[in-house]
């Protein structure tokens, strides 16, 4: 069982009204934007389950938009995030999908488009009490909470990539807490998520990219 801190009980400190529909939603979007390179130009949020039905009354829309602009769950600017996004020239859209029922009740797909034209879609689930997890990256099933510092490697599913990743990390003295590989199908696109207690130096990114089967590297610090 993972450690339950006193600040998990008396927390999160958050903009109301709901830890699952507001704080959790904000946390998902906050983590999603950390995973995307470049300046965001447009964001589409597709809402499922309870999110789709009650997002307006819970401020889920404003929380998601705040998170995507990098606001933490206790940042009062969440209230005015629609206005702030417009001022920043960020295009956004909310699409409630009540037809899809085979999902966790509080699920959102976040499609992010950067000004360089690159795109990424992340699916997150809000689990209650402000807790959440990322369950898909570009439609590949993953499991990622952002509780640790993480390296997310986008790669082709070929031999030797995992060995390359562990070698680079070991050269930098990074201790691996968890490491998992998720793939679309054999030989296609795959993701390796490595989680660590250590801070991850930026130069590992370039070294990881040296392997021809590595397409992209994201470094996500948990603070």
């Amino acid at each position, binding site marked *: *069982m993972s*450690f*339950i*801190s*006193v*600040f*998990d*009980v*008396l*927390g*999160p*400190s*958050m*903009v*109301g*009204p*709901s*830890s699952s529909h*507001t*704080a959790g939603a904000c946390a998902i979007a906050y983590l999603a934007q950390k995973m995307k390179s470049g300046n965001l130009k447009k964001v589409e949020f597709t809402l499922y389950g*309870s999110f789709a*039905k*009650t997002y307006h*009354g*819970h*401020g889920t829309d*404003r929380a998601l938009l705040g998170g995507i602009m990098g606001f933490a769950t*206790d940042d*009062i600017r*969440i*209230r005015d995030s629609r206005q702030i996004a417009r001022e920043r020239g960020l295009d956004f859209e909310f699409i409630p999908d009540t037809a899809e029922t085979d999902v966790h009740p509080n699920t959102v797909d976040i499609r992010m488009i950067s000004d360089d034209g690159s795109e990424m879609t992340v699916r997150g689930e809000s689990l*209650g*009490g*402000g807790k959440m997890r990322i369950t898909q990256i570009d439609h590949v099933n993953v499991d990622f909470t952002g509780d640790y510092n993480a390296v997310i490697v986008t790669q082709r599913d070929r031999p030797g990539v995992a060995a390359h990743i562990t070698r680079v990390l070991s050269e930098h003295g990074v201790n691996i807490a968890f490491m998992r590989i998720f793939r679309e199908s054999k030989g296609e696109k795959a993701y390796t998520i490595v989680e660590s207690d250590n801070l991850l130096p930026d130069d590992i990114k370039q070294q990881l990219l040296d392997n021809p089967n590595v397409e992209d590297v994201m470094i996500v610090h948990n603070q």
Partner: protein
Amino acid sequence: MIDFKNAAELLELCDTNRWTISRVMRQRECDLGETGNEQIQSRMSRVLEIMKDSALSPLKSPVTSMGGLIGGQAEKLNTLYEEGKSICGDVLSTGITYAMAVLEVNASMGIIVAAPTAGSAGVVPGVILSLQKHRHISDEKIIDSLFNAGAIGYLAMRNATVAGAVGGCQAEVGVAAAMAASAAVELMDGTPRQSLDAASTVLMNMLGLVCDPVGGLVEYPCQNRNAAGVSGALVAAEIALAGIRQWIPFDQMLSATYQVGRRIPYELRETALGGCAVTAFGCGFCGKK
């Protein structure tokens, strides 16, 4: 390494070391969270600061909730009290005022501390800040009491649930009130056993409370129930401080709460398909939206 899995172990740690519950919880946080006392003290000070802001600001500047169901209640209660017309007495009157204030802030997208959840965030600050005001207690001691409350909430999260969708309102306001009762006992220099007895009493008295928010929003009846949570906490603390023992210890009462919660029908667990949510008013409100 200080840790405990249930209230019996917590009590044993208190007895063996002659520590308060808050001291055990503080040590546990340092040991398992791999952090120092200074750091957690400053984080908890920030928690208290947010609690104070959210309990006090609506008394002077009321705000309407996003759903439009609440707003201005704390100001009205404060006026009643200041005019000397309160029938509850100082501690209870101020406690329910603060608790309802926090829910107003929460429902209008202000900043609150989930304690243990956003929908039950008013109870703990209501009780401890009212005691601080009327019994002139230092911030330092109030911060200690938050660690005490945290110990009870941790046990509920670990061994039961604090989600209304899983265990009904008894898991949210019920647990919040148990936390507040335990903290109140420590603030009044009661023993760890009395704290746990008070927490047990609260769960007993709130057993079966359903979660049935009108329109699915964290507003109504949530705000009223936070006020009821304050009164339940103070009643239980008073009983414990008088030296009245409870036959059913906290661990057993927590387990009973969880078992009852699992048997609460789906319609009455935060789905807005039963109870207050489907009264003529509740349905009418949803129809208008």
